[in-house]
């Protein structure tokens, strides 16, 4: 079991390192977005214990909620957002590893919800670490600039730039490894300590949390009263209609085509 746990923690460290590189430092393919990072973590962890589908489903559930919570957060210029990538990886890791020992669905769900809440706090801690890395990079930049000014040492640039990337990877690897290594047992013990009534309360929370993300998206997209009226009318329509994903997609597609073709770009 300790060896299993060590392997899982190392795996999580590696996934965290790679995913965190994507969030700002390199590529930016958006593997670091919770809706990708969390299922990816679930899939790899699940594969380790032969439960790929369970891991993937858990990742998708947690990724969906975290994606909604932090949909507006982006590393633009000086802004350093909470580290959603690390939060995604860690919430799935903690939830999966601590939750797999529980027999009931309710206990597992509670374990996942608590892991999610803990990971949100860890995402904030990740932001502080990101700032530290940027400060280290600033020192590195001064070193590279001085080398080039003084001695035409062009080799200093690739070295300094690569070290900057390694800082990011190393930070994420160590952070994920340590949190997974130390965090699973306390989470399991905390979940065990909860009564049944508290447990089902956590499931109610899980059901309501998406509304915050929807609110943020609505706050980002709706700019005036007319758009707000359309939005309310749309919600009323989809409340009455049978829940059909294709209706939502069809409405979105029609609106894209119509808006793009209209000369002034209005509905």
């Amino acid at each position, binding site marked *: 079991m300790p060896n299993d746990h060590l392997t899982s923690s190392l795996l999580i460290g590696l996934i965290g390192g790679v995913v965190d590189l994507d969030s700002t430092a390199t590529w930016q393919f958006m593997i670091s977005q919770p809706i990708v990072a969390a299922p990816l973590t679930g899939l790899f962890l699940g594969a380790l214990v032969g439960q790929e*589908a369970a891991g993937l489903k858990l990742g998708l559930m947690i990724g969906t909620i975290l994606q909604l919570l932090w949909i507006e957060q982006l590393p633009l210029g000086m802004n350093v957002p909470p580290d959603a990538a690390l939060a995604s990886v860690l919430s799935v890791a903690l939830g999966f590893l601590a939750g797999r020992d529980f027999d009931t669905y309710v206990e597992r769900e509670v374990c996942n919800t608590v892991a999610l809440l803990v990971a949100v706090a860890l995402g904030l801690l990740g932001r502080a670490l990101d700032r530290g890395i940027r400060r280290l990079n600033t020192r590195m930049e001064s070193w590279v600039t001085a080398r080039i000014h003084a001695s035409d040492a062009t080799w200093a640039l690739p070295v300094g730039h690569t070290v900057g990337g390694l800082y990011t990877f190393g930070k994420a690897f160590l952070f994920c490894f340590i949190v997974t290594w130390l965090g699973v047992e306390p989470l399991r013990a905390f979940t065990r300590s909860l009564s049944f009534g508290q447990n089902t309360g956590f499931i109610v929370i899980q059901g309501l949390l998406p509304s915050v993300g929807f609110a943020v998206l609505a706050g980002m997209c709706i700019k005036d009263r007319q758009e707000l009226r359309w939005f309310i009318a749309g919600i009323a329509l989809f409340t009455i209609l049978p829940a059909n994903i294709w209706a939502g997609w069809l409405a979105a597609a029609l*609106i894209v085509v119509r808006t793009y073709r209209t000369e002034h770009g209005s509905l």
Partner: protein
Amino acid sequence: MVPSDTSTISPERRNGTAFGRFMLFRIAFRSFFLQASWNYRGMMNMGFLYALQPALDELYPAGPARKAAYERHLEYFNTNPYFSSLVMGVVLSLEERLARGEIDAEIIHDTKEGLMTACAAVGDGFFWDSWRPFVAAAALTLAFGNFLLTPILFLVVYNMPHLYFRFRGIFWGYQLGTDVIKLLKTFNIQRARLALRYATIALLCYLVPNHVNLHTPFLLSNLPLEYFYIGEKLVQGIGAALLVGLAAAGYRAKVDVLMISFLLMVMALVLYHWGILI
């Protein structure tokens, strides 16, 4: 800063031969690592120079000219990463002209500064503000339905315009030079942004009433079974709209998203404790 003679240029560059496709692809590939050493002084400066380094090394032989080129590009640089290769293409074409003695180094500085600002505005507005929220909302509609391929679809759809701009951008910038601004205007980015914003709202209209799970025991005890389904849908739709409205009001009032989430959790636990929600 204009070189007095062309002896500072590599012999193979002296006749003004253009860089080949391989070199341009190499720069576009290196632009993926633009922010590896993001820092508070020059922001993306080291990444920018790192991407251009092979071309500059080919353009200038080791010595003062190469050193001057390096120093030129160690100045502050910040733009949208997906549009960075476009700026690199323009700068590369200007570096060639500088090396041939046709322009002054100041022109490179001014063009780079103007272009990085324009590309940041266009790129951030389109990718961060419109494209990412839209693709995320579309992916969420699938994820809520437990569609396991959602992450792959998200990555494929999101990265189509990203990779297109990344790899076409270097060629546009290099071939068109400063005229690339005229090309950017033809994209109708503003209209595309508006269309994506409206589409995201449409997807939200579907998501809000269907994917906020709000159940109350009152319906079970007070409604005849044949009306239960419609009653549940109405409570879900109206309750979700109210919750989203409250949270959106908090968001507009600049309350932190995590604080809103925390308040919602407390409210959920209180309503559960009173038996209003199950």
